[in-house]
């Protein structure tokens, strides 16, 4: 279900600045996040990656503009975002199935009265899209790290977003789970015409999957292809080694 068919539509961040308590967390961050591309945000801890995500999701006050623009540079009025959090910290003993959790977000009927047929079908479809069909009846607390990330991805994809934001979704998942999650994500990228912004610490993953890489430290230090960013002097300055050496 592509929303806006154009090769060049993008989310345009124009001089985003976030201040809190006299401290500047982000300074004049400008970037384009293109539809149909996987944009990866890298940087050290405290570089402002999560702050940028919060600003994008409209959760913290910021100055600067966030626009959703089509191929001709015209504004698309609404920006629908989907969000996959880092690691879900919740009470794993809570009696709630994956279906309850999804239905609570997707329908108005209170899930303690049960889940209606329509919602059930919608949940099943959403889970199937992320290779998680068998999980609906399972308690949410019993899901492995990889399963949980796929459930969260299924939720973030409903309703279909223009921009999917993932905050280090791959930390705390084993190798198998990780591969499955990334394959699912890439499939979604191909089948849905949406922009994906992902925060990652896993540089090997970035090199392999990213279409566009942005190096952040309060402001944008470098951006471009993985190769361009990894070989930049800014990358060496931040990480203390050249990303290209690391590859060998």
């Amino acid at each position, binding site marked *: 279900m592509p929303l806006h068919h154009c090769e060049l539509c993008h989310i345009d961040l124009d001089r985003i600045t976030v201040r809190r308590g006299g401290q500047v967390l982000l300074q004049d961050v400008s970037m384009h996040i293109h539809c149909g591309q996987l944009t990866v945000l890298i940087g050290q801890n405290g570089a402002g990656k999560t702050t940028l995500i919060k600003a994008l999701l409209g*959760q913290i006050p910021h100055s600067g503009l966030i626009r959703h623009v089509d191929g001709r540079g015209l504004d698309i009025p609404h920006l629908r975002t989907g969000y996959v959090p880092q690691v*879900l910290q919740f009470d794993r003993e809570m009696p709630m199935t994956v279906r309850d959790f999804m*239905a609570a977000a997707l329908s108005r009927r209170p899930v*303690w009265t049960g889940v209606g047929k329509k919602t059930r079908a919608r949940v099943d479809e959403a889970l199937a899209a992320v290779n998680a069909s068998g999980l609906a009846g399972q308690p*949410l607390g019993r899901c492995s790290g990889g399963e949980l990330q796929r459930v*969260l991805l299924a939720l973030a994809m409903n309703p279909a977003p223009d921009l999917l934001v993932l905050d280090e979704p791959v930390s705390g998942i084993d190798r198998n789970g990780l591969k499955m999650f990334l394959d699912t994500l890439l499939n979604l990228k191909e089948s849905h015409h949406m922009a994906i912004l992902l925060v990652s610490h896993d540089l090997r993953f970035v090199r392999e999957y990213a279409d566009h890489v942005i190096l952040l430290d309060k402001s944008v230090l470098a951006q471009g292809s993985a190769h361009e960013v990894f070989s930049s002097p800014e990358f060496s300055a931040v990480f203390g080694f050249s990303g290209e050496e690391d590859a060998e």
Partner: protein
Amino acid sequence: MNTIYGILGTILPLEAYQYSFMKNAFLAILLLTPLLALLGTMAVNHQMAFFSDALGHSALTGIGLGIILGLRNDLVAMLVFGVIWAILICVIKQSGSASTDTVISVFSSTSVAAGLLILARGGKFAKYSSLLIGDILAVTPGDLLWLLIALAVTLVLWALMYNKLLLTSVDSFLARSRGIRTRLVECVFVVMVAVAVMLSIRWVGVMLINALLILPAAAGRNLARSARQHAAWSVVIALMCGLVGLTLSYYLDTSAGASIVLVSALCYAVSLAVRAVRK
């Protein structure tokens, strides 16, 4: 009312239920326990057991303030104070200035102290000691009507809020990213708990109110796998324990509230055992 008494007399052919005060108590439990048990499911999920305990304690201050301000109606004083207290705790908790259990503890002890200070002036506390243990046998048909209204209003609000609360209790940032106003949702929930607690405190007592809120939901949680099962088990356990406890208290000549809570505690122990066996 007589029709209802008639029906009760037929379905409960026990000596205990010949008396209308027992019939009133029976009806009160029928209305009260499901209300508290449903709210309890979310209080348990939200890890707010301690919080509701503090709310119960604030009833003492509420009544004390009511006396100082010259309010005739204890219930109004308790309700107003309970709601203000609940919102205050909620706001301070959300500001994140201290850890939640510290905040609650401060509120709880402050309200007990303030309540005692006022109520025990001139050694008159004995007059209010019934507040501590409650008296379910003192329920009047008028009270029952209020309870029925409270139950209806709570169910409506509960239906509107439940999904949002559930998502908030899993991850509040995720909930906010989906357009849920988590702070508002939490505060409305807390106010609902405050109202339910204040409405029941005269009959259940400050000491035991929290048990009715938390025990059935905690036991239900041990047995349930889904949200629906949690609600169903909690309500069934609460009703069953309430009615069994009330009946036992008549024959054993014990405090009704205490009997109900002890039966609930027994249910909780059984639920723990069932859970251990299942694993």
